[in-house]
């Protein structure tokens, strides 16, 4: 997966490049809108990450010209301005997502993966398995090591999210949004408790442990051998 990061603040750009590269993406980086447009038009990227305020062409201009040239590459905006009209403008121009600075890197990574997944049609799964945990998505049942695990509806939804995006660190805000549909800055202490309770049911008394905490960033589900 090849990404382009256009960010005029060199430090932020470099950190983003490093973080995304370490997450397994190929990342090109430019410092202004003109270069961003040139790169985006000449190379096939899977996703563009554009800062809105850039010298030369701003992010919106780049997006407009890109769409005018018929490129449908998904675009994620980074912006330091949180104004409703800015969001509306970005979304009207065909931006796929936006993040307001300061944002957590885990959040960015999760959004990037969501956007990249959007294009591909993931086959409808009815059954998922990791290590000795089996989950039947139709019957809403989880079985570990042959033992049936009782889960509440929300616990099941949380487990399903972690499973579908196994190996990814999911920030608390993303979990709150996907499982509880809380799309605002809510008390994320709730997520800690909810994950702790799920973990007690899934991992307590079983080996290997599947639910892991990425401290300060979020949670992920993975089996040890896939590390």
């Amino acid at each position: 997966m090849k990404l382009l990061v256009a960010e005029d603040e060199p430090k932020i750009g470099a950190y983003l490049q490093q973080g995304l590269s370490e997450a397994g993406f190929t990342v090109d980086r430019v410092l202004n809108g003109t270069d961003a447009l040139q790169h985006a038009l000449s190379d096939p990227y899977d996703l563009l990450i554009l800062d809105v305020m850039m010298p030369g062409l701003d992010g919106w201009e780049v997006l407009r010209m890109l769409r005018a040239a018929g490129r449908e590459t998904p675009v994620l905006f980074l912006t330091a301005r949180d104004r409703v009209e800015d969001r509306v403008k970005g979304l009207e121009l065909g931006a796929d997502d936006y993040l307001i600075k300061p944002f957590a890197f885990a959040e960015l990574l999760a959004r990037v993966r969501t956007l990249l997944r959007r294009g591909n049609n993931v086959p409808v799964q009815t059954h998922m398995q990791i290590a000795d945990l089996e989950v039947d998505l139709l019957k809403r049942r989880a079985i570990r090591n042959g033992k049936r695990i009782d889960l509440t509806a929300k616990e099941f939804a949380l487990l399903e999210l972690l499973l579908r995006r196994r190996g990814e660190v999911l920030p608390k805000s993303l979990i709150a949004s996907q499982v509880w549909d809380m799309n605002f800055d809510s008390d994320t202490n709730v997520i800690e408790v909810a994950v702790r309770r799920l973990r007690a049911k899934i991992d307590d008394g079983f080996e290997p442990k599947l639910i892991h905490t990425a401290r300060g960033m979020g949670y992920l589900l993975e089996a040890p051998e896939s590390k």
Partner: protein
Amino acid sequence: MNRLSLTARISLMFMVAVMAVAAIGALSFKLLTQHHFQSLDHHTLAEKLDATERILGQLNGIDNFEVLRPQLTALLGGHRDLTAIISGADGRVLFAEPQLIDAPGRPPARDTVQTWAWRDGAHEYEGTIRHIAVPYETKPFTVTLILDVSEHVPFFEKLQQWFWAGLLISGVVSAALGWMMARSGLRPLRRVTAVAASISTRSLKERIPTEPVPSDLQQLVSSFNGMLDRLDDGFVRLSNFSADIAHELRTPLTNLMIHTEVVLSKKRNIEDYEENLHSNLDELKRMSRMIEDMLFLAKSDNGLIIPQQQNLAIEQIVERLLAYYEPVAAERNIKLKLAGSGIVQGDVLMLHRAISNLLSNALRFTPDGETIRVTVRSGDESTDIAVENPGEPIPVDQQEKLFDRFYRGDPARREGSTTNVGLGLAITRSIVEAHRGSIWCSSELGRTVFHMEFPHPNCSDGAG
């Protein structure tokens, strides 16, 4: 005209008014004088005609007319301005003093004195004619009296000159007086201006005294003072807020700096560095969240929080939030109960956030094993949402302060909780106010209730 000063305007208007009054006065004086002169003339003419009639009554045949001439001359000849012409029945002029004047013909008057006026060169005349029956004559004589009224003309000319001069003088004088009066009348306004000009952020406490101000300006001065009150209030809040921000950011910054410096002061193993970075990350997230919350409040202060207007079933929002908080409540064996239903017109995200803050707050102060109740009541004019939890009562004097920024009910706040920086209730209040609602807290007998009241929109679909 727009740029003219108020003083100039007032003195100009005063001058125009004075001159208009003077002109009306002069005009009426002129008309009155004219009328007076006219009636004097009429009187004279009538007297002369009557006397002439008496003299002619003594006439003993037309041939003896000369007998009467001395009498007639005595009566009619002595006046410089008066011309008298008596003609016989056959039209022959019998008597003309001092000379014959050709008068334009008019029908003779019978009983009353009717006059007519005409002008001949520089002279103005007024004349009257009467037919007088004479003894032994079958037809009446015709008596024509003509008065030369040219003498009046210089009088009226003089009058006019005086009038113009008077108008000019009164114009100048009234302009000067008007200017003086306007200046002294507008003095309170200049005093207001002086105070207004002297006000800066340092002297927002200053007010314009209302006692010496005339009643017309009371309104202006009190609105001005009201504006100063609001500015002062806003400024005080702003400076307190800035001080709070500085203080609140200083603590995590100090943590970050000291911790990082200490860790860097000597070589350590990798776990120590990791620990430091994690702790820094927590602190940074706390700061980031605080900045976001403060920006929200700043926007709401500036009226930039504009809620979308949708009809929302509040009980559904509360249900979702209760489901969200369920794990936390379950861990502490706290029960969450919802009763009632109601509709509020507003912004779905903001209302979630407002109620969420109240629930989060209630959970923090509810003892384990107790129950938090959310009650939604739909009234005729508003929907009331009450979040009630058992816990230590909040003293009355603190109940209002709860909604202030950075106010914390528990002095020993939990450092770990990223939300508890004391902005939650302030945000809730600003959301409620952006929805034109009100929020208050009551606390007694071990129960604390937060009420939010949202007025129904005017349209009928709000009642649900």
